[in-house]
């Protein structure tokens, strides 16, 4: 199937701004799904609210567009009740880590087999450019006219500490890498997190004089380096890219399956 076959083409052109990185995330994700040859009927995409969250309307999977910050909680219900489904949960940075932070760490803790994708544009895009917990200090935003004093989370560290068993980071500039990481994340049995830096030229870019979409992407090339590279080692200001964590731990639904087995035996006798 072509990538377009995974789209609900009737809603195109999509609602994202010209150059919005979220479109590239969609692009990379569909290619991952296509390359894995997954059955559309087996995929549920759950999203929250935000520009990013609109992604679920564009994919021809079962799609569940929910409440701001709650995508992973809904997804947990879907997955737990029908573990054979593949759960893709793309989220905005605010969605995933401001209002949604608790569900994020708890899904990670449980190691439930869901693929969480943080579409990190470091801003609340949909509401017009307020800072997010991933903006970091010194950023201009509509609610930070004097620049931000809020530290940012490091998604990789937080996900890892919370218990995620696959943790990776890339950017929209690194579209091929994104597809390959997403494929691994989807195949990984357990809670996987892929953070993708995704430009919001309309709000983050404009306020912070980062130029147009292409310039913002170019910047991603410059401020990142692959995990394990010498560049990264030598320059701690760089963001690492690639796989940070890949570990095996019991997956939640599988473990619950054992409880069911045990209980059914108990009930039977």
């Amino acid at each position, binding site marked *: 199937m072509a990538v377009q076959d995974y789209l609900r083409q009737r809603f195109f052109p999509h609602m994202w701004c010209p150059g919005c990185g979220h479109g590239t995330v969609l692009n990379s994700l569909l290619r991952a799904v296509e390359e894995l040859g997954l059955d559309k009927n087996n995929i549920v995409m759950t999203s929250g609210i935000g520009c990013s969250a609109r992604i679920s309307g564009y994919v021809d999977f079962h799609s569940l567009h929910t409440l701001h910050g*709650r995508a992973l909680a809904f997804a947990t*219900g879907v997955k737990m009740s029908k573990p054979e489904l593949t759960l893709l949960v793309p989220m905005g940075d605010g969605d995933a880590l401001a209002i949604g932070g608790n569900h994020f760490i708890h899904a990670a803790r449980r190691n439930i087999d869901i693929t969480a994708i943080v579409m990190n544009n470091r801003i609340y895009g949909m509401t017009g450019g307020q800072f997010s917990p991933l903006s970091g200090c010194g950023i201009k935003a509509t609610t930070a006219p004097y620049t931000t004093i809020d530290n940012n989370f490091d998604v990789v560290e937080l996900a890892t500490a919370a218990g995620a068993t696959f943790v990776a980071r890339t950017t929209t500039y690194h579209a091929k890498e994104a597809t390959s990481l997403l494929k691994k994340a989807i195949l990984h049995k357990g809670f996987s997190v892929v953070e993708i830096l995704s430009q919001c030229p309309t709000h983050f870019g404009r306020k912070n004089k980062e130029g147009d979409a292409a310039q913002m992407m170019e910047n991603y090339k410059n401020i990142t380096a692959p995990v394990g590279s010498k560049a990264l080692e030598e320059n701690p200001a760089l963001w690492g890219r690639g796989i940070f964590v890949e570990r095996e731990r019991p997956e939640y639904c599988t473990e619950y399956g054992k409880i069911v087995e045990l209980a059914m035996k108990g009930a039977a006798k």
Partner: protein
Amino acid sequence: MERTTKFVQGNEACVEGALYAGVNFYAGYPITPSTEIAEALSGRLPEIGGKFIQMEDEIASMCAIIGASLTGHKVLTATSGPGFSLKQEAIGYACMAEIPCVIANVQRGGPSTGNPTHVGQGDINQARWGTHGDHAIIALTASNHQDVFAMTVEAFNMAETYRTPVVLLFDEVVGHMREKLVIPAPGEVEIVDRLRTSVPKGVDYRPYLPREDGRLPMSDFGDKHRYNVTGLYHDMWGFPSANPKIVNELLRHLVDKIENNVDSITRYKEYFLDDAQYILISYGSSARSAIHMAKNRREKNEKIGVLELQSIWPFPSELVREKCANAKAVVVVEMNMGQVLAQVKAAVDEPNKVFLANRIDGKLITPTDIKGLLRVIQGRGI
């Protein structure tokens, strides 16, 4: 299989009702006085291949049951006031996206943390109006364990029938008290199962287009129809729309499917109403006191009757109006400041003959309390 008799808490009666109705997914977060529901289901659900999950909070619990409902499960969550407040946003989502689910609220003393282990009936209006925006909701209640069982079964049935969240408004006294429960034999009580679409693969399935009979067949996530679910205003395929005509129809539909079916949804019991000059209207544990008092007074030949409401929302105004038409006075017995009272006043022809017998101090209202108030209403003083 046979009927079985058990001696259980009201919360356990709710669990038995849910299991009888086919619940196979529960998500929740503990809170007094509802916790026994979760505790019992954590043991029982896996025995029947169902799933129990303790989530990180009430918000997540509500979201999780919605997600599980979409895969075709019968879902339940249970909570009490503070948790019920937290669930409101997601309850509104379930209304909007028309997702069958059951929420038990075992009421305690409120507002705020109030008193977790004492009784209250203060969440009646919250059940109706707790989430933002116009919507409709079904809320059932019960005063004894047999009815807790029955209303729990009804709640699941109505959730499926109307594709909507249904609230079970129990209270601490009923939830914690133990008494007899006779569990009907399988098949004895009707169970409404999920209506699934018969639209074949490849044919356009419209999840939000009501059939001739008003019902909206569903398709499980994972099954052949891929559609969209959203809390935004949406068209019949579930995709966002801001078209005023579509919005208007959607919102009307959400309310009408419930309000227009008030007759089918209404559940009540009556005691000695035929010739009653004084009618006590009550529900939940306070109805027990009302009934107790009425039985006592009847023995003394006083013409007192009780109308026990088992469905609160949509409010059975017509029923109340009819039953109260000939009463000298109507006394609403409840443990709040007159939430059902206001509904009764709006329903009857002579609002001035409606009075309130209430108690708000965390103690179950007693037959003596009611008797005292009735004397005053009758002009006989204390």
